[in-house]
């Protein structure tokens, strides 16, 4: 521990990644989970240059999930996968039921609507609406980043935040119109 303190207090100040207090806090957290050798991987040690002229531990390294600082970029990315698969295995079944009921006849459709416009049905429908808009908005973010744009910290953070904000707004607008015009 003393060894590590010495390392973080003076040795790592040359590196722009390690020099921040925020990063040092990660090192502290890392040390709670691991030994000195692991903590050393999270900070640069001047003088220990690798052959390519880079620090022995080029930043940023990704520590274990449990000690990684949660940031909105990572959360929106995980949410993209979760919402996508929820849509694929949940909303699609709801959609199929609606469509097949309409093709089956008035009784089947009425039964679908009695469930879908009940409180649980509305909850599910509003939930899937948000799930769709969230996947759509973070998907647009992915399409933009696929073109190589929006990787600087401010833009990246803004787009991630915008994806969450837009999905909530779009859900509220959509259901506001449905509730005010469809008489549910």
């Amino acid at each position, binding site marked *: 521990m003393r060894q590590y303190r010495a390392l973080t207090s003076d040795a790592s100040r040359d590196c722009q990644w390690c020099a921040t207090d925020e990063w040092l806090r990660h090192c502290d957290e890392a040390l709670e989970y691991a030994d000195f050798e692991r903590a050393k991987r999270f900070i640069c040690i001047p003088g220990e240059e690798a052959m390519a002229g880079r620090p022995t531990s080029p930043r940023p390294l990704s520590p274990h999930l449990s000690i990684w600082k949660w940031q909105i970029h990572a959360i929106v990315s995980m949410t993209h996968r979760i919402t*996508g*698969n929820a849509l*694929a295995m949940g909303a699609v079944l709801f959609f199929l039921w609606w*469509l097949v009921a*309409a093709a089956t*006849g008035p009784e089947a459709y009425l039964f679908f*609507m009695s469930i879908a416009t009940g409180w649980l049905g509305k909850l599910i429908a509003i939930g899937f609406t948000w799930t769709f808009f969230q996947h759509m908005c973070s998907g647009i973010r992915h399409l933009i980043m696929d073109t190589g744009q929006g990787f600087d910290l401010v833009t990246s953070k803004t787009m991630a935040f915008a994806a969450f904000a837009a999905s909530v707004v779009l859900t509220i607008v*959509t259901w506001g*119109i449905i509730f005010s015009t469809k008489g549910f």
Partner: protein
Amino acid sequence: MGTGTDLGRVRGLGSAKDGVHHWWLQRVTAVSNLVLMLWFIFSLVRLPSLDYSSVTLWLRQPVAAVPMILLIATVFWHLRLGVQVLLEDYVHGSTRVVGMLALNFYTVAGAAAAVFAVLKIALGAA
């Protein structure tokens, strides 16, 4: 390991060589999903009512039935590609093979049921 020539063994290794195609189709279907899903939600919200007659009358029109069939194709294609990534990342061994088979059956059966439903309404049999 293995038999045959060095070149023959090397050719049998490595990636399946269709990763870029998978990646690209995921993006292509994402764009068509975006356009068609926004059309779908906009159309449903604009309908005077969501009862049986309003919905089936709407779906009888070619301008609704054709985009609906395209929507079904692109959504099911996109989800087939997306869930594959989930299975590849989290499911391993023979379970993954079973998972992929189940995903393929789910995709084809779901899309077929949805397209049939649209056609039945649009062609006036419902």
